[in-house]
């Protein structure tokens, strides 16, 4: 190349300087006063406090919503220290041991974000006679019951840079809980938007948090609640389902729509929202859980229905062979067998249960398959929304559960 660039006038000195670099480095190191190495860092401590691996809490108080067949559990840290702060609308995942099964259940935090600073979260559990965990919790949780929970999770919350300043919330039954938290956050100045909640209940008696919302509405004009009763026609309430017409009746200018409720409500609203012709970005839905009738989903291989397959599970150095019903997600088979498997949203979205399908086939509803591109290609699945349609070999990540 023929260049001969020098920084000092004599290039040889530059070369010498290069040769001496390691000496200079060594001298700098040797000149330092050796220190006790701690390995703690302020930002890491902040991150850990906001996102701990898990949190141990106790049930501090129980509120019975008899009319709605639900109870609210107020959870607190035993020592009263603060819980991670959160965005109103986020959920916590409870890690439960029911019989021999280690399961998780996701519940929106219904309390004000500022309660977290006082060390409290509230969740609301509604009875579900066909379910596995809800009624068990309602029966077994007492004041003083110890629980292990995740930190608040999920993306069902207001975003200043994305959402319209006007939000119309569509709530069905206990789907009201994230909106109660949002309403508190607005009241407290933690969030700044106008929230109009169309809250669907069966009848007046089963309305959840009526008094709480009345108080919030008295304290701030940014929150408005409209109760919509499906089974009862009464003065002062809307009647029927939440429809496009009803949304337009209460909308004032442009708005974002937030939805949280049972599966049937999402199905119904699909058609109603289509009438409003809103861009996708203005519609946010909370995770919807998983179907109980997988054989009715598009493209399901019907002959698998009702069968029981062999599931070989590898976790760390351990290996188990268990049964897996075609009618239930793979995650449920793991839980039934007493394996400590990771999960959080149980709707396929959060990816916490991501596991490696070594062999075999599963059915995943293609419309709800939100896995990463490479994961689809390489056979990584989200067991919470994957149904076995053959014998399977699965590698499952480790997860902590209290015994």
């Amino acid at each position, binding site marked *: 190349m023929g260049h001969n660039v020098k920084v000092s006038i004599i290039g040889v000195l530059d070369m010498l300087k290069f040769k001496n670099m390691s000496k200079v480095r060594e001298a700098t*190191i040797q000149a330092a006063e050796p220190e006790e190495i701690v390995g703690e860092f302020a930002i890491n401590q902040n991150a*850990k406090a906001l996102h701990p691996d898990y949190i141990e809490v106790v049930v501090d108080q129980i509120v019975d919503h008899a009319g709605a067949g639900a109870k609210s559990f107020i959870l607190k840290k035993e020592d009263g220290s603060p819980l991670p702060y959160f965005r109103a609308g986020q959920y916590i995942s409870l890690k439960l041991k029911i019989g021999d099964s280690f399961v998780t259940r996701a519940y929106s935090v219904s309390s004000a974000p500022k309660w977290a600073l006082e060390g409290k979260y509230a969740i609301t559990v509604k009875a579900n006679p066909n379910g596995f965990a809800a009624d068990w919790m309602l029966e077994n949780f007492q004041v003083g019951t110890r629980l292990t929970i995740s930190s608040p999770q999920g993306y069902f919350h207001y975003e200043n840079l994305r959402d319209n300043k006007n939000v119309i919330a569509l709530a069905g039954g206990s789907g009201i809980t994230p909106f109660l938290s949002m309403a508190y956050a607005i009241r407290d100045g933690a969030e700044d938007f106008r929230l109009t909640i169309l809250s669907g209940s069966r009848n007046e008696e089963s309305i959840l948090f009526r008094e709480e919302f009345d108080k919030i509405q008295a304290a701030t004009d940014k929150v408005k609640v409209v109760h919509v009763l499906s089974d009862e026609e009464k003065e002062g309430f809307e009647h029927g389902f939440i429809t496009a017409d009803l949304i337009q009746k209460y909308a004032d200018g442009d708005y974002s729509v937030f939805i949280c409720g049972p599966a049937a409500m999402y199905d119904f609203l699909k058609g109603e929202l289509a009438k409003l012709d809103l861009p996708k970005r203005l519609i946010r839905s909370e995770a919807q859980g998983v179907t109980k009738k997988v054989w009715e989903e598009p493209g399901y291989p019907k002959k698998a229905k009702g069968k029981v397959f062999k599931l070989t599970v590898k976790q760390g*150095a351990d290996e188990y062979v268990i049964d897996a019903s075609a009618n239930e997600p793979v995650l449920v088979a793991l839980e039934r067998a007493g394996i400590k498997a990771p999960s959080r949203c149980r709707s396929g979205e959060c990816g916490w249960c991501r596991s490696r399908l070594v062999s075999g086939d599963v059915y995943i509803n293609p419309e709800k398959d939100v896995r990463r591109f490479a994961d689809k290609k390489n056979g990584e699945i989200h067991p919470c929304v994957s149904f076995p349609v053959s014998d399977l070999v699965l590698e499952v990540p480790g997860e902590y559960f209290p015994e």
Partner: protein
Amino acid sequence: MTKYDVVVVGAGNSGLSAALRTQLAGKKTLLIEQHNLPGGCATSFVRGRFEIEPSLHELCDIGPVDMPGEIRQLMDEYGVQCEYVPVPDCFRVISTFSDGTPMDVTMPHGIDAFIEKMEYYVPGSTPKMRELFDIYEEIRQGTAYTSACAGHADSKVMKKKYPNMLRLGSYPVNKVFKAMKLPQKCQDILSVYWGYLGVDMNHLAFIHYASMMQRYVRMGAYIPKHTSHELSSAMIERFREVGGEVWYNCRAEEFLFDKDKLCGVKTTLGTVYCDMCLPNINPEIIYGKMMPKELIPEREKKLVAARGHRYSARMFTAYFCLDCDYKEVGIENYSYFLAGSSDSEREYNDIHAGIDKNNYCIFLCLNVANPDISPKGTTVCSITTLGAPEEWSKVTQEDYVALKEKVATKMLKLIKDKTGIDISGHIEEISFASPWTFARYLNAPEGAVYGYEVRDWDGMMTRMMMLKQDFPIKGLRPIGAAGPRGDGYSAAMITGSLVGKLALKDLREWQEGGNN
């Protein structure tokens, strides 16, 4: 309990590379990862209908198939298959020249094209630019040679083949630019990549910068077609294919020793025994929390002290998924570097002073390089800036969201003012990654993904020269950004390979020497 030859901790760029290196050499390797997927920084996350790239802007050293760069060659050697897409330009930079005139410069890939474009912006600069790129090339080859020698470079070869590297090797970038009498405007334009290393041009070694810039300009940059998660996944698939074992959601808790030699790792999924462990864990965490204090060499305590907890850049990125085509909001280029000035030391200091003074950011639009990265008629773009350490360590949980929004809002306005790009009204998904996020997912001290600053006496070259002196614990060889090659995707992969080779050498000695 099974015994492994090697346990690699952390399935990021460095760990994946190291694990492939040792497993392919026939050493039984276990790769453990604290999360449930590979990649570390090199990952992706899904929001709504979008899969989002969290960290990679452009991968250097891939190169075209017929002229493979160091990383493509490394992946070929490992047998890792991944589809890459070329990035159209080097960069567009909108800033201010040292003489106060406005700068809006777009530089292409390819040395000839780059020099030609520089001539257009700075007439008469060609001879000096040629000279610079000749030296860049010499240094690129020289650093590749020293990496390949893993600390055993032959000084005669160095003197004969890489004399300019030796002559310029001890100086910071600006000093060499000045000594070469590069026109000031060229210097201003050439400074743009400093943010990729997080150290300003008065304190960053010329050879480090030269070697990096050459890698970007010479044969262009690439990105994996389906985010960097695709590349990490391809690496881990290959690792499994050749017999490697992977444990996810598994955290290393403690290193176990037999006298002064490592013999195992206590993990959250049980204890594993091994002859060698390659952790991508910052040495301060290893020494502070994961091994017996009495085994920590005095010199290591001094090294930590001498580094003075000077962790590198605190990254902040805001991700935006738009419900329209990128052209609709005025995006023309792949990457825009915006800076208040072309004085990198001033920029560095302003960044450290806090968001009110920070005018530095990189705006990136993946669709410009790769239209298939998001559904038709949508766009994925991001803003990356560096953060002030104090600001992010002192903010409370309650104010944390507001700080993230403040940074993003300021940068969005800066971008709108300087480029005309206005994405408001089109944001369908949004997400932020702050130093807290990087601390959470990567365990990097203070969330500093670049390791220690590659600064002054602790630059890349001197770390390479002292490979044998640093981390002298038998059976424990840290990898990652705190290692010899510093930060960046390709640097981490090379470090993984390099340290993997050193580990293999140790293993050969111990296992074949029979003194294990």
